[in-house]
C-alpha cells in the first residue's frame, strides 16, 4: 500500500518471531498506547499481514494499512477502545 503516510505512536518489532508471536505482541502493546494512538507492528511472518486486519476488526480497533518492505511488513492499527 503506497502513499500510506502514518506516524506510529509505538512500534513493536516482532521480526524473527513465528506466528502467533507477532499477534500476541500486538495485543499486549495496544493496551499500552492511548485510545486514538497508532501502533505499528513489524513482522517477518507472512501470516501476520492477514491476521492483524481480522484481529483488529474483531476487537474493535481500526486497521489502517500495511507497507511491504524487503522481507517484512509494517502493519498499522489505531486503538479505538
Amino acid at each position, binding site marked *: 500500500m503506497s502513499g500510506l503516510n502514518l506516524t506510529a505512536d509505538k512500534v513493536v518489532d516482532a521480526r*524473527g*518471531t*513465528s*506466528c*502467533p*508471536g507477532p*499477534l*500476541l505482541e*500486538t*495485543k*499486549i502493546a495496544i493496551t499500552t498506547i492511548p485510545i486514538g494512538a497508532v501502533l505499528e507492528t513489524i513482522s517477518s511472518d507472512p501470516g501476520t499481514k492477514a*491476521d492483524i486486519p481480522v*484481529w483488529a476488526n*474483531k*476487537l*474493535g480497533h481500526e486497521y489502517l494499512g500495511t507497507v511491504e518492505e524487503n522481507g517484512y511488513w509494517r502493519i498499522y492499527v489505531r486503538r479505538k477502545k
Partner: protein
Amino acid sequence: MAGKMTIMMWSGTVDKLLPLSIITTGAAATDMEVTIFLTFYGLLAFKKEMVKSNQKYSKDFEELIPLVKDRQKLTNGYASWYDMLKKAKATGKVKIKACSGACDLVGITKDDLDPIVDEVVGIGIYIAEASESQVTLFI
C-alpha cells in the same frame, strides 16, 4: 464479542502440544477465554518433570521428526510449546484444568503437575464450559 474456546487435550506428543499453544495464543490474543482440559497423555505431558523434557512425537509421520526437530531449533518461538503457552497464560485469558478421573487412573495428584495447571476438576466442569463455548476442540 470475544467468546470462549474449550479444548480437550488428550494427546501428549510435542507435535500436538505445539499446535495447542499456537491456537491458545491466537485465541487469547483475540480476547477469547480459553479453557484447556487435560486428560490421558495430555495430562502426563503436564507433569512437572515432563513439561521441559518431553521429546515424544507422533509415530504417524515418524520420518518427518528429524526435520521438525531441526526446524524447531531455527524458528524463534516454536522451540518450546511450554514457554509459548506460559506467555499465552500471562494474558489472564487461559485456564488449564486437569481431569480428576485421568489423575486417578495414572496415580497422580495436583502436586505432580506443573504449576501452569490451575486445578483438578471433573468432567462436569468440561461439559458446562464446552456447552457455553463457540469453539470446542479435541486434540
